[in-house]
C-alpha cells in the first residue's frame, strides 16, 4: 500500500507541476487544412482505419446504426441508418435545429475555465445526436474525433439528447493520426437524459503520446432517466484531465460511471467522475480501475447528496506496477442533508504477492501471473458494449497485460 504521506507529497508536486506549466495554448496550431467529405468510412486509409478501430470505431459500420467522423476541423462523415435518431454537426444543428438554445451551454458553463472559454470562442463543430421520443435503438451510434495534423488544437462542442423513454447508445472514439505527436483536444459534451430515457455513452481514447486532452462534460438526468458513462483509456497521453459530472435532477434518476485507466511512463491522467444527487430516490455508482506502469494517475470521485433517501457508492481501485508511478485516489463523499446513504471503498497498492504465488503454484511464471492478474483487474463488466468493442477491449487489455 502507498503510504498516505508519500502519495500526498508526490500528488502535491504533480498538481503544482501542472498548475505551473499548465498548457501553453499559443504553442499549438489554430488552423487546419480542410478535409473532404467521405461517403463511406471504408474509404479511409488502412492505417487510419486501424487507428480508429483502436478507439472503438467500427469502420465497417456493421454493428453501428450511424456514424459521425470529424477530422481536425472538418466534419467528413455524418450518417444515420435509423429512424429513431438523428446525427448532425453542432454547427448545422445551431442553424437547423430549433430549440438548441435550450441545450447549448446549459449543462456546462462556458466560463468554467480557460478550456470551456476556448471552446466557446473557437467553434470547430462537434456532434449533435438525438434519439427520438420512445425510440429504442438496437445498435450503438458512433462518433469519432480524429486529429490528423500534428500540433493542432481541436475545439469541439457536442450535444447529446435522449428524448423521453428512448434508449440511446453511443460509442465515442478519439484518435490521432500516424504522424501526430502532440496536440490539444478540447471537447465539451452536454448530455440530456429525459424522463424515462437511458443513455449509454462509452468513450475510448487512443491518443498520441504527447497529447494534452481536456474533455469537459456534464449530464442532466430527469425523472426515471439512466445515464451510464464508460471511459476507457489504455493508451498513453501526456496530460489528460477530466471530471465529468452527472446531475441527477429527477426522481429515481440513476448515474453509473465506469473508468478503466492505464498510465505508462510520461502519462499523467487526472480523471474523476462526479454525481450530484438531487432527485428523490436518485442513485449513483462510480467505479474506477487504474493501473500505472510508471505514469501518474489521479483518480477522483465525488458524490454529493442533496436529498434525503438517495443512495450512492464510489469504488476506486489502483494497481501500481512499477515503483516510479503514482496513483493518488481522491474519493469524496459530501452529504448536504441527513438520511443519505453514501459509501466509498478505495484501495491502492501493488499486486498482492499471495495472488502471484497462488498462480505460480499452478505453474504460471511470475510474469504470466502478473499479466493475468492485471487483465483480471482491468476487466470491468461494462454494460452496453457491442460484441466487437468488447472483443477489441479484451484484446487491448490482453496486450496491456502481456506488456507488463
Amino acid at each position, binding site marked *: 500500500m502507498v503510504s498516505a504521506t508519500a502519495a500526498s507529497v508526490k500528488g502535491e508536486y504533480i498538481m503544482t507541476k501542472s498548475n505551473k506549466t499548465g498548457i501553453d495554448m499559443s504553442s499549438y496550431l489554430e488552423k487546419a487544412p480542410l478535409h473532404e467529405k467521405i461517403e463511406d468510412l471504408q474509404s479511409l486509409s488502412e492505417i487510419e482505419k486501424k487507428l480508429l478501430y483502436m478507439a472503438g470505431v467500427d469502420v465497417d459500420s456493421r454493428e453501428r446504426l450511424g456514424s459521425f467522423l470529424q477530422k481536425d476541423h472538418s466534419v467528413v462523415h455524418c450518417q444515420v441508418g435509423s429512424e429513431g435518431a438523428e446525427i448532425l454537426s453542432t454547427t448545422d444543428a445551431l442553424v437547423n435545429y430549433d430549440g438548441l438554445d435550450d441545450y447549448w451551454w446549459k449543462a456546462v458553463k462556458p466560463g468554467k475555465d480557460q478550456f470551456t472559454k476556448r471552446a466557446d470562442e473557437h467553434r470547430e463543430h462537434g456532434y449533435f445526436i438525438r434519439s427520438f421520443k420512445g425510440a429504442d435503438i438496437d445498435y450503438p451510434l458512433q462518433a469519432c474525433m480524429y486529429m490528423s495534423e500534428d500540433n493542432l488544437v481541436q475545439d469541439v462542442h457536442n450535444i447529446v439528447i435522449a428524448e423521453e423513454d428512448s434508449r440511446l447508445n453511443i460509442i465515442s472514439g478519439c484518435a490521432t493520426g500516424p504522424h501526430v505527436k502532440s496536440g490539444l483536444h478540447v471537447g465539451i459534451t452536454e448530455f440530456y437524459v429525459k424522463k424515462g430515457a437511458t443513455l449509454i455513452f462509452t468513450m475510448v481514447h487512443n491518443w498520441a503520446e504527447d497529447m494534452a486532452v481536456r474533455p469537459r462534460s456534464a449530464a442532466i438526468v430527469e425523472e426515471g432517466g439512466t445515464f451510464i458513462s464508460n471511459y476507457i483509456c489504455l493508451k498513453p497521453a501526456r496530460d489528460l484531465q477530466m471530471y465529468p459530472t452527472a446531475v441527477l435532477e429527477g426522481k429515481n434518476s440513476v448515474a453509473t460511471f465506469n473508468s478503466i485507466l492505464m498510465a505508462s511512463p510520461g502519462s499523467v491522467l487526472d480523471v474523476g467522475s462526479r454525481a450530484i444527487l438531487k432527485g428523490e430516490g436518485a442513485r449513483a455508482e462510480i467505479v474506477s480501475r487504474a493501473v500505472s506502469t510508471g505514469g501518474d494517475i489521479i483518480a477522483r470521485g465525488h458524490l454529493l447528496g442533496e436529498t434525503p433517501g438517495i443512495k450512492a457508492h464510489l469504488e476506486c481501485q489502483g494497481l501500481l506496477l512499477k515503483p516510479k508511478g503514482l496513483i493518488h485516489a481522491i474519493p469524496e463523499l459530501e452529504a448536504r442533508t441527513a438520511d443519505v446513504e453514501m459509501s466509498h471503498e478505495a484501495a491502492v497498492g501493488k499486486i*498482492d*504477492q*499471495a*495472488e502471484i*504465488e*497462488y*498462480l*505460480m*503454484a*499452478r*505453474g*504460471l*511464471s*511470475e510474469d*504470466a*501471473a502478473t499479466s*493475468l*492478474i492485471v*487483465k*483480471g*483487474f*482491468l*476487466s*470491468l463488466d461494462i454494460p452496453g458494449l457491442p460484441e466487437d468493442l468488447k472483443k477489441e477491449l479484451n484484446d487491448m487489455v490482453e496486450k496491456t497485460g502481456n506488456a507488463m
Partner: protein
Amino acid sequence: MAMRGSSIRQPILQVEDLHATVAGKEVLKGVSLEIGEGEVHAFFGPNGSGKTTLLNTIMGFGNYKITEGHIFFRGREINDLPVNERASLGMGISFQRPPTIKGVKLRNLVEISSGVSGKEIDITAEMLNVTEFLDRDINDGLSGGEIKRAELLQLIMQDPSIVYLDEPESGVDLENISLIGKAINKLLGRKPASENDKTLKEKRLDRKAALVITHTGHILDYLEADKGHVLVDGKIVCGASPGDILHTVREYGYGECYRCLCEGGIYNDKE
C-alpha cells in the same frame, strides 16, 4: 544444482535437516523426511507446530526462508527454484486460504495451468460439484468447503506427481467430506478400498505421492495413508503408523504426544 546419484528407489521428495524462518522467526527446526513415489504421508501436530510452514517451504513461497538444510525432488535440489518451476517439476499444493483473484475466472486458470479446455474440465467440475464456480472469479465468495473443492479441481487438472494438502477436511461439512475424500483418491490415482483389484505393483505405478496435513485426522477415514508423522515445535518427533497416531490423538488429544515425548526425554520444553 546438486544432484543425488540416481537409484532405482529414489524418493520423490527428500527433506534433509530443514530449518526455515517466517518473518525472522525460526519455525522449522530441523525436519527430515523421505516420501517414495506414490506414497501418502500424513502429518499430525498441534496448532502452531509448523505443519503449514513445512508445506509452504517445500513449495517455495516467498515468506518462508530456508536457513539450513535441503529439499530434493527426485534427487534434484530445489532450494532455490521459484514456485512455478517446482510446479512444473510435478509438485502441486492445495491452499488452506487461497486469495480471491478478481476478474480471473476459475475456468480460465484451469485451462492455463492444465493446457486442457472444454469437456474434460466440465466433467471433473461436475464430479466435484463446482460447475457453478467455473465462470466466477477465482475463490470469490466461496465457503470453506467450496474452496476445498475448487482447489481439488485445479489440482486434478494440473496432475502433479506429488501433492501437498493442507487440512483438506477443515471447513467441510459432513455431507461433503466423503466427496472431498473421493476427489483426493482420484487426484492420487487411488481407488477406495472396496474397489481395489489391482496388484500392489500395478497400483504403485498410477499413484501420486502426497503429504497430507491433518489436525483432526478425519480425512484418513476416506484416504489410506502409508506413513504417519507427528510434528511438534518444528520437529518431527514421532513416526508411526497413521492409524496408531490417529487413534492416540482421537482418544487422548495432542497432550498425550507431549506426555509421551517428555517421558521419553525427547521433548522437555513443554509450554
